[in-house]
């Protein structure tokens, strides 16, 4: 359990990034903001953890990056989900739901 509200448990961040990128390709700051919005401000993403996670995902081939003009017309590095990343996201989502359901059953029992 995270000790402080807003911290992310290891591994979860990867999945949240994949989820964000599954919707559309995005630059680093956009990903951070999107995760906060989607979690309604529960998760706050630290820049260090974010970029380390991005490098890790990129090296394992789940996402790739390209330089593009941003919404306010500046060059920014955009991250794109690869086919492999999409598959991984789907399988991880299923696994996650299975686990959450199992834990929920235990807690409700």
């Amino acid at each position: 359990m995270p000790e402080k509200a807003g911290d992310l448990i290891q591994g979860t961040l990867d999945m949240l990034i994949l989820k964000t990128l599954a919707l559309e390709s995005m630059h680093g700051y956009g990903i951070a903001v999107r995760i906060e919005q989607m979690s309604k401000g529960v998760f706050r993403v630290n820049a260090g953890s974010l970029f380390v996670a991005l490098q890790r995902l990129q090296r394992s081939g789940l996402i790739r990056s390209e330089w593009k003009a941003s919404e306010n017309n500046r060059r920014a590095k955009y991250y794109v989900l690869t086919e492999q990343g999409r598959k991984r996201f789907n399988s991880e989502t299923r696994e996650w739901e299975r686990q959450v359901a199992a834990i929920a059953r235990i807690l409700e029992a």
Partner: protein
Amino acid sequence: MAVLRTIAAGLRSLFRRKTVIREMDQELGMFLDMAAQEKMQKGLSHDDALREVRLERGSLEIAREAVGSAGWESVLETFRQDIRFGFRTLRQHPGFAAVVVTTLALGIGANTAIFSLINALMLRTLPVRNPGTLVELFHQYPGEPAFNGFSLDSYKIIRDGNHVLSDLLVDSPDFFEVRGETLETQKVIGGYLSGNFFESLGLRPAIGRFIGAEADDLGHPSPVAVVSWSYWKSKYNLDPTILGKQIVVNDTPVTIIGVTEQGFAGLLSQEMSQDILLPLSMEPVVHHSSLGWGSMWLVGRLKPGISIDQARAEMAVLFDSAIQAPDVGPYVRQMKFKMELAANGISTPLRQMLRTPLLALMVIVGLVLLIACANMAGLLLARGASRRHEMAMRACLGAGRLRLVRQVLTESLMLSLFGTLLGVLIAYFGVRGILRVITSGRQVVGLPVHIDAFTHPDTHVLSFTCVIAVATALLFGAVPAVSLSSLLAPGLQQIARIGESKSWRRFSKSLVVVQVALSTVLLSATALFVGYVSNLRNLDLGFRRDNLLLVSLDSSHSGYDSQRWSGLSQQLLAQLESLPGVRSATLSETTPMSGTGASSMALVKGHPENRREVSISFVAPNYFRTYGTPLMAGRDFSSSDQGEHLVAIINQTMARDYFGASNPIGSYVTLDHITLREDDTPTYEIVGIVGDAKYNDLRQPTPRTIYLSAYQEGRIVSQVTLRTDIDPEAMISAVRQTVASVMKTVPIGRVQMMTDQIDASIVPERLVAILSTWFGALGALLTAVGLYSLLAYTVARMTNEIGVRMALGAKPSDMLWMVLTDALWMVCLGMLIGIPLTFASKRLATALIDGLPVQSPIPIVVGIAAMIVIALCASYLPARRASHVDPMVSLRYE
């Protein structure tokens, strides 16, 4: 795929470092901008917005560090940083670096040199198919070294009768005198091969073809030759037209039909290449050999699944039946069969002679390296203490313990690397020096002709050196690294005290104790070996070794028959004796300690039961007077013996063994195996008895020796010995002129002092003595440096305390003693450990070298005394400095 991508990405950030960093900066900059922009839209000022972003998102510098150190390549990156930093630190302390690198270079160089010799002589395997199944066959006369060299008949019996060998090969080495169209006359090592040789070894010709089954047809010698690749390269520059060329080998023309593949040159072991290989059928033609005992060197290949013990058992039975044949002499009948694995090549005297000395030396250089490591550890530790402020600072700035330890280890590794590079250079020249000792003096069959093969580093040597280097770095680097663990509580206050801590002092002292212990062992071993060699050198040989000049005449192409030779040689001796400075001159077939000799079975008339082996020496008149061997009874040979009945002179040992108390003079002796005479067992009248003199090996007791008159036997004896009144060296040119004027067609071979010839006969012992002296001195020097630097450091740290003590009334001599006692304690403790170690290593030394005088307590006493003297010298300077401390100065010291 993912692995490849990770590697590729890592490599990119290693090699396109600037680009990667720039992209990262851009990306992070964008991140910061966007976040700040959003804040500013909510009405914050630019600066406030930036601060808020930092608070919320963490520092971007840290983010960059985190990303940079997340990939695998960051390990290499830190390594690079460590190395750069290490370089800087070492450059700041060039003296320290020089001491460490030199010490290591000497230690590693010594180890590499000895190991490369061991490698060349004992480890390298032959470049042939399945070298592990090759065996070498020997026979051994009781009490003599084992020899390869069988007779044609025994070869056939062994070849056809055994069930344990898949092949029996012949590779009989021989010296050839080779000349040709484009070649100067030159001595070359070569050999005679059986027809199955190349096929069984799985060799292919580089060009041309190999000798085949025709080699075994002794009735039809085929005049062909295969040369080695290195010979092809050095003499023909790899010219393919070598095929079909004629060369003349010992006056017999042969045609070159093929060249061996690169790297292979006979089975003799790799440092001695056989460059000219002839078919076995040529041995009777080229060598005028009847293929009797001693002429055929045999190598077998074990059948699959047969162990060497099984094979040995069966072959021994075959050998016993072979030597029972009616025409075999009694000497051969007493021989025993031996068989050894031959994966490294077949034995040469060099290999047998150097095996144990090299192992002993390997132990010695290992000890030197250990001392060097302890020494380095001490130095690094002292330096670590003086670097504690730097370390503390870095720890406070956030360097983890692992990072600091890694930095220290990297520095040790770098020092070790430099030491190794220099060490390899030292080893290269060291091996040459050692080879010069080995090859000094007399000609030994089996001496390396291609010295390069020794010094040429192969993968064995290189990997050995690398392992040594890394192990050394870890060994001496681990100590200061571990001592860093006390930096774990990184308060500057505590760290500042590490240098004075009790455990630190105790540890430094124990390092010195270890060095003293190992040095004591080394010094004792040195004293032991040196004492042994000086004993050998001063041994009573039965002749006077000083002022003897040996001149070897090469009679092989003189064209003189024995009649003419004997006349000319008597004339030569007379002329030589008339030279001023020459007291007497003589001739003999061999000279003492020359490495050659002859022996036979002797029988005294009337005592058929008393049949023993005696050494034979063919000498001219005046031999005993020249050598200073006393004539005990009877007379010397004289020129008037020529044409009379055969006479002989025996030594005291032979007289005692055959005749006991009775007088041998006038008795008759018969000898077996004097091959040059028609009647196989000639009879000699004993006309004189001389004092015992060593024959061929000064370590062995004097053998029974019979001296025969060279002129009576019609032998062409060509070894001149002169006894001079002045330095023999000054006589050499006069002797050369005299020889040239009397014998115009006879060139002079080797000219040597007797003392040098004796030295050459104890090469292994001298090698160990010379090198252990060097290494012992090196070890002692290192220990002295270790002791000195620890004491000097301690005194420097204690300046304050000493000042206070002296201010309170302590006398300078008290301070002197305080430091000396400290040193003596360490030395005594070291000896307490070292002396039992010395006793243990003496047992090792006796196992390696026969006849070592280990019972004597003198070496240990010498070792201990030397150690104490060295320790006192090393501690005197720091002690003096302690006694000269000025209280006023020292109180201002800190």
